[in-house]
């Protein structure tokens, strides 16, 4: 069920000269099953926002509701919340620590107090979900490649059976194929399990390709909350916030400037190819 943020503000340095509003009056409804992209430059408040969603940070004012319940009520179980709203941090492979891959993925569900059989079943399923072959299960996680380590770290969160999966820049530092693999995996997970996904990303091209809805943060405020095409039509505003439109959008804008009747509301390569062919075929 849904996550709702009602007038959420988070300040640090309250009462001093250095007071900063890291989040400024955020109102947001995140229904089940959406694939959401969260963008904004470094320091815009993205990470602060996602840390509010599973109760790691408590808002200075405002409320957060999960399935209709205020997550900061005294009788609300934060432990359960954190298993339901899974957060994969940046460079999550730095958090691997167990002697082998399988034990590492077992760590989360084991802490939920599940019996051994259930823990192992979940770990096995999670590793299968991220596409790691059985031969790696009993290797040290430190002997795997960068992309594999990251998938193990994601499996560790999946083994908690979250309903909402938040990934903070899951492709940072990976090669192009590694980036495609992780994003392909996330997209597949969403299709197969119907879980809500929130993807924090610096790549406009990636969000344009994958998500249904984009949230744009700037200086702690939620500037845009809309479907990708609508958000990326605000090119100038995005640039003023240190962001950009996808690269193909700029290509279409250039063609339009040169007098061709192309639709500039295009955000992916396949759409752009189709649109250029349409216009040039009529010549």
């Amino acid at each position: 069920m849904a996550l709702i943020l009602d007038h959420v503000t988070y300040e640090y340095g309250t009462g001093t000269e250095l007071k900063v509003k890291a989040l400024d009056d955020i109102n947001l409804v995140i229904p089940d099953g959406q694939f959401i992209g969260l963008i904004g430059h470094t320091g815009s408040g993205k990470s602060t926002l996602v840390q509010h969603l599973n109760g790691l940070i408590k808002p200075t004012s405002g409320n957060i509701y999960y399935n209709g319940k205020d997550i900061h009520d005294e009788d609300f179980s934060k432990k359960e919340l954190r298993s339901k709203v899974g957060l994969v941090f940046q460079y999550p492979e730095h958090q691997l620590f167990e002697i082998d891959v399988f034990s590492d993925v077992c760590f989360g569900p084991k802490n939920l107090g599940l019996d051994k059989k259930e823990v192992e079943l979940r770990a096995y399923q999670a590793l299968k979900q991220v596409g790691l072959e059985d031969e790696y299960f009993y290797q040290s996680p430190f002997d795997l490649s960068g992309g594999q380590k990251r998938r193990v770290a994601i499996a560790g969160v999946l083994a908690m059976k979250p309903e909402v999966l938040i990934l903070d820049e899951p492709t940072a530092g990976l090669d192009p194929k590694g980036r495609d693999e992780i994003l392909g995996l996330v997209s597949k997970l969403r299709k197969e399990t119907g879980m809500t996904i929130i993807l924090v990303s610096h790549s406009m091209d990636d969000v344009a390709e994958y998500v249904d809805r984009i949230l744009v943060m700037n200086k702690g405020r939620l500037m845009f909350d809309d479907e990708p095409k609508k958000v990326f039509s605000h090119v100038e505003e995005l640039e003023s916030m240190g962001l950009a439109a996808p690269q193909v959008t700029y290509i279409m804008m250039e063609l339009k400037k040169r007098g061709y009747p192309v639709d500039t509301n295009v955000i992916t390569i396949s759409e752009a190819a189709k649109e250029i062919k349409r216009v040039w075929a009529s010549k």
Partner: protein
Amino acid sequence: MGIIKTKNVVFDYIRRNEEGDVEGITTAVKDVSMDIQEGDFIAILGHNGSGKSTLAKHFNAILYPTEGTVWVNGKDTTDDSKLWDIRQEAGMVFQNPDNQIIGQVVEEDVGFGPENMGIPTREIWERVEESLKAVGMYEYRKHSPNKLSGGQKQRVSIAGVIAMHPKCIILDEPTAMLDPNGRKEVIRAVRALNDVERVTVILITHYMEEIIYANKVFVMDAGEIAMEGTPREIFSQVEKLKQLRLEVPKVTLLAYELKKSGLDLPDGILTTKELADALEQKG
């Protein structure tokens, strides 16, 4: 002989188990020969684990070849008596901006290198000033590095290297942890260094768009040089790059898709302008 030359370089990692016994040997660099001329802008591509960082660490004597030889400005890197000269002539910038800054104030950080070289105080200040100006960070000279953005920190790291008056600067994925704006700032600073100051640049990256201005590109795979040529020559080979877990810039990919569907466009289009020009010629 160029500023950096490698001849038949091989590098073996010896893997040891917990007791310190040798478990096996991994060859990370296999028979690499390259000759980089002063003033070049070289890019090195390759997937995670292809050996590019290992190779780069040979360029300023952080690693020494198991077989073969590396010369920096004519000096064999295994010659201990030349170590400090080599490190001064070939400076390195790493991925994580937070791991490279030590000063409390920007200008002190930049002055650290020349100070260690025993440069007279007055000249240190001159060097700090010109280096910070070269990367566009002069107005931040009195700031604390902690308050800077990732892109600004990376530019301070670059200034710290330039202040040592190197002939060559090696950047190992300097933009991997930055947002789009930070990435642009760093690449702009690097290009200016090469264009204006004629410093030799060796840029390692996973972002294809960053290297279209390089005059030569090496693509590494399994420790070997798999491809070598101008950006246009390299990016004309879309399928081969895909096999090597890489990609081409989005503009190049769009042109490639259009060509595949029957629109007659030249190979290796690198910029929006080139694509628009080529389409304009079609009518």
